[in-house]
């Protein structure tokens, strides 16, 4: 992919983000932060590529280190979001 097509995806995604986030109800702003935190750990993709280390052993260990950090976030972020969302209940008692 050339730079311009990547940039187009990025700019369009910013607009999508803008409209989607404004539609999030304020009551769920804390779960929103937790889940955005979890998904930003998609950086794990870069970490996995780095761990390949066809040339540099240092790069490999940096990559594996980044995999550990991103995994903390992925599992922790989604789990804590799930835990919070499970607490939001509607009035059902009389």
């Amino acid at each position, binding site marked *: 992919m050339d730079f311009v097509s990547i940039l187009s995806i990025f700019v369009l995604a910013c607009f999508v983000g803008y409209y989607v986030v404004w539609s999030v109800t304020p009551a769920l702003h804390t779960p929103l932060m937790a889940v955005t935190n979890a998904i930003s750990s998609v950086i794990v993709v870069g970490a996995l590529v780095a761990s390949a280390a066809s040339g540099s052993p240092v790069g490999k260990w940096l990559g594996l280190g980044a995999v550990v950090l991103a995994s903390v*976030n992925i599992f922790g972020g989604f789990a804590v979001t799930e835990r919070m969302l499970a607490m939001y209940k509607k009035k059902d008692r009389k």
Partner: protein
Amino acid sequence: MEAHSVSPWVAVAYLIAGVCFILALRGLSSPATSRRGNRYGMLGMGIAVVTTLVTHEIASLPEILVAIAIGGGVGFVMARRIQMTAMPQLVAAFHSLVGLAAVLVAVAAFLNPEAFGILGADGNIMPVSRLEMALGVAIGAITFSGSVIAFAKLNGNMSGSPILLPARHVINLGTLGAILVLTALFAHSGAAGPGENPLFWIIVGLAFAIGFLLIIPIGGADMPVVVSMLNSYSGWAAAAMGFTLHNTAMIVTGALVGSSGAILSYIMCKAMNRSFLSVIAGGFGAEAGAGGGETQEQRPWKRGSAEDAAFLMKEAENVIIIPGYGMAVAQAQHVLREMADQLKKHGVGVKYAIHPVAGRMPGHMNVLLAEANVPYDEVFELEDINGEFAQCDVAFIIGANDVVNPAAKTDKTSPIYGMPVFDVDKAKTIFFIKRSMGGQGYAGVDNDVFYMDQTMMLLADAKKMVEDINKALAE
């Protein structure tokens, strides 16, 4: 070049992962759809990880699995154990990890550009990639050190009050400027083989320093803005690495997270009627506190008891509860819900009113009330409930202060002037739980509500006081 010669299905898989992340955020538009949204997020992450493992040359699978198991185990245990009142710290800690991961990935790409497919024909890293990786590493480093400071302040390892260095604006602007200039030089300079150019390391060092310097002058109650801002940065760091890797999932996610954090910062600033720049410049609270000290006069106020509160609320038709950070500190959300249950048994209508900046992160109070089993349809936002105070018998303020201060509406000289506040002064009776008369809110301004005819101050620890009210209600 390895990364680019793969099948187009790989790009499609990353795109699907990106779409899953959009659906994850979309689900949060209502609590009813939110959990399905979270599942989409997990699905997207699964697709992205598996696609990478299958299609890229990686370290041996056992090594990867061990790394994921270590990180995942730690994260999972943290997520299970954390107290809901400590959520702001947890989120700050998680941000710092994203930032550090971005730094590690960028450094790895710098040392080993071939694996990332960003080596040009001349044996140098391509200029565009150099620009992207320098920006990625800088944003990642700022996110990391900034989040560490935010964590320390929120967790109480460090005082929440602003730390003001002399000439801090000059130092900060100078450092930021230097980072930008060095980034441009790094992208343009000739020697750019793998790991060669020392400018890269200077950028990393300066970025760590500026993250630290930017957050230390910001006070505790401005943390909602800071946490949102760092959330945004962690997204931009992921996006920058996505540019380097030509990876759609990372770019889409980075853009989503970046906009999300930016919008939350905007909402928080608006709810305090302050500009983003004034929050980032820091020092709020320290200066105001010093200035407001001399006009202290003794004004009469009424002290109420738990019995008074129980009696008056039992007789009331409707009660609006306004929780603030003090409720979180005292862990009073559960006893508060018990109080509301008892009142409801007496036929009293109970609603909760939440200010956007109540607590230490956006939506903090909502989570705590949800934890205490308060149904979310009893919880209202500022603009939805503010009209109801005029018909309200009792306003019950627990651990909030600045967000009910009428000076924000009337006193042009007040540091909080213009901030939208609850019109509690229109309620027939006000109960104000506060630890003592001495302490003032974060902004360091006196609150006229304390001295109003219809106000009764309930001076005690919030949890203790509500427990006493519960006992009195039960009699």
